[in-house]
């Protein structure tokens, strides 16, 4: 019975923790502009993140090494430093976006300006990282994030034309007939953005470091596999629900999503103030949880690369550089937000840059997952490797195409 509860908790936490500000904004933007014609990207992204998380979790459980330790050991210092710099900066960008997202969500709940919420949010993130036990942190934010199911409920309440939605989803090449010639490049730009939002690199740093934090061994792998294989796809369905809600309510009115407030309007239309309450709790929980994860990831990447002592399982005084690095990162994120930059704009860039940086984190994991010195007999099977290679190609294509498309489309204008 206890095992069943543990399993349920793991799955539920995976669902609730799947979405972050990148998913919320990108799916809503895409739904409001393209309907569900980009839905296939969510599927591709979810399969990818399942594959990726599974491999990195297995590597951590079997070898006891977390991602950046492995990157350093396998790629050597030159490639490792380049990898670290890029991953760290993009992680920092995502952190900034998440803290901004918390502030925006709190504004929606309270009407108080987000600039006032940002220091509060950053401080709260730090406090939780400083004091709260890892598993409690994960479980609380994950379970509260489950309230985002209200997006799926709202989609049903809106009584959409399911045939139309299905047609959009299954005929991904449908670009409207009266579209500008640039529409194709814009479509693919947003495909990459959505892909980056689904396959967030910090998720992998966090997952594998978390495995070490919670001292996973090989027998914990089965549980983690279930969490990932059930939880993440269900989280992906929520992503589609967000896009679907935007497609049903915003697209017909030709409203392009540019702010978080627009993301929740469809939920209000579907279920009124009660639904709105749920979605706001969910957004605060999801963005706060993601802010925690990105903050910890920034600590993990630096500490693991430079060989510092790290981990929430240690007293802060025994992982001094780790904690100071995280404090500095939060301060930098806060500083960037204090310049008045729009957190939604930061989010939109962070997902595209996440897509660009994906090969850097993915390739070492794929290499190590096949290395018998680290993995013993738990190296990748043939099926995993087949998918692994396929995704390597997809990730490389997305990464290379991102910047040219960004330039051509003016960042999706």
């Amino acid at each position, binding site marked *: 019975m206890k095992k069943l509860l543990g399993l349920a908790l793991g799955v539920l936490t995976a669902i609730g923790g799947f979405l972050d500000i990148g998913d919320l904004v990108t799916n809503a933007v895409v739904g409001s502009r393209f309907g569900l014609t980009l839905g296939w990207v969510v599927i591709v992204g979810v399969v990818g993140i399942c594959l990726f998380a599974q491999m990195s979790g297995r590597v951590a459980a079997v070898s006891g090494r977390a991602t950046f330790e492995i990157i350093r050991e396998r790629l050597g210092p030159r*490639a490792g430093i380049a990898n670290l710099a890029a991953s760290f900066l993009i992680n920092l960008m995502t952190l900034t976006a998440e803290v901004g997202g918390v502030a925006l969500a709190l*504004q*929606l*709940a*309270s*009407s108080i300006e987000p600039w006032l919420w940002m220091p509060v949010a950053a401080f709260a993130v730090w406090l939780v990282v400083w004091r709260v036990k890892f598993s409690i942190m994960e479980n609380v934010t994950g379970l509260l994030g489950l309230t985002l199911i209200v997006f799926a409920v709202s989609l049903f309440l809106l009584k959409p034309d399911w045939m139309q939605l299905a047609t959009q989803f299954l005929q991904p090449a449908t670009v409207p007939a009266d579209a*500008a*010639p*640039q529409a194709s490049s814009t479509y693919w730009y947003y495909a990459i953005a959505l892909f980056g939002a689904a396959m967030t690199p910090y998720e992998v740093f966090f997952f594998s470091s978390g495995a070490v934090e919670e001292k996973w061994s090989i027998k914990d792998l089965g549980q983690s596999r279930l969490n990932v294989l059930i939880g993440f796809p269900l989280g992906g369905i929520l992503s589609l629900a967000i896009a679907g809600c935007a497609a049903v*309510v*915003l697209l017909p*009115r*030709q*409203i*392009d999503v*540019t*702010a*978080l*407030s*627009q993301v*929740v*309007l469809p939920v*209000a*239309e579907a279920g*009124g*103030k009660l639904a*709105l309450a749920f979605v706001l709790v969910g957004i605060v929980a999801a963005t706060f949880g993601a802010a925690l994860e990105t903050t910890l990831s920034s600590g993990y990447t630096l500490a693991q690369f430079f060989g510092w002592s790290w981990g929430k399982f240690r007293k802060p005084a025994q992982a001094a550089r780790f904690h100071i690095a995280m404090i500095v990162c939060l301060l930098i994120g806060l500083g960037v937000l204090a310049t008045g930059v729009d957190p939604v704009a930061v989010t939109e860039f962070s997902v595209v840059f996440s897509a660009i940086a994906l090969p850097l984190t993915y390739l070492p994991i794929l290499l190590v997952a096949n290395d018998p010195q680290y993995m013993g007999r738990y190296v990748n099977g043939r099926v995993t490797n087949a998918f692994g290679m396929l995704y390597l190609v997809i990730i490389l294509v997305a990464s290379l195409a991102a910047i*040219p498309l960004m*330039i*051509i489309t*003016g960042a999706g*204008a």
Partner: protein
Amino acid sequence: MDIPRARRATSLAVAVLACGLLAGCVTTAGGALGDLTRSSRSAASDLQSISLALALFSDDRSTKAVTGTAIEDSLADLVTLQQSVATLTVDDARERTARSRTLSLLDDALEAGISVKEAVNEVGGAPSVITAHHRAEGAADRLWAWSTRLEKLW
């Protein structure tokens, strides 16, 4: 993994060249008229958003906080659009006329948005919800029609 220096230099040069070429093709598609079209469409989108927020609020389906935030976000975007259109470089008389027409429509849009904000906050002397709603919808429709006309002129 040492790539010979010559090859590295060549790859770098190619990359820079490619970026340069791409920057050249950066289709500010349609030039100034294209920018005006996109700005008009964005403004129409903002007004529709304001209109939807108002409708949900008057239906008691939304809270004041969410409605207020949605309206503020759209108004802020309208102001940004106004600024970017005002500072747009125009080359000939046709573009200049187009720009001033867009600006006047944006002014209308901003005022319509503000009247919605006042209606929601029940500021003294504010228009009724229905009037504000009509005003916002009307301004949005005009902007959208204008953008369609502009697009044909690229």
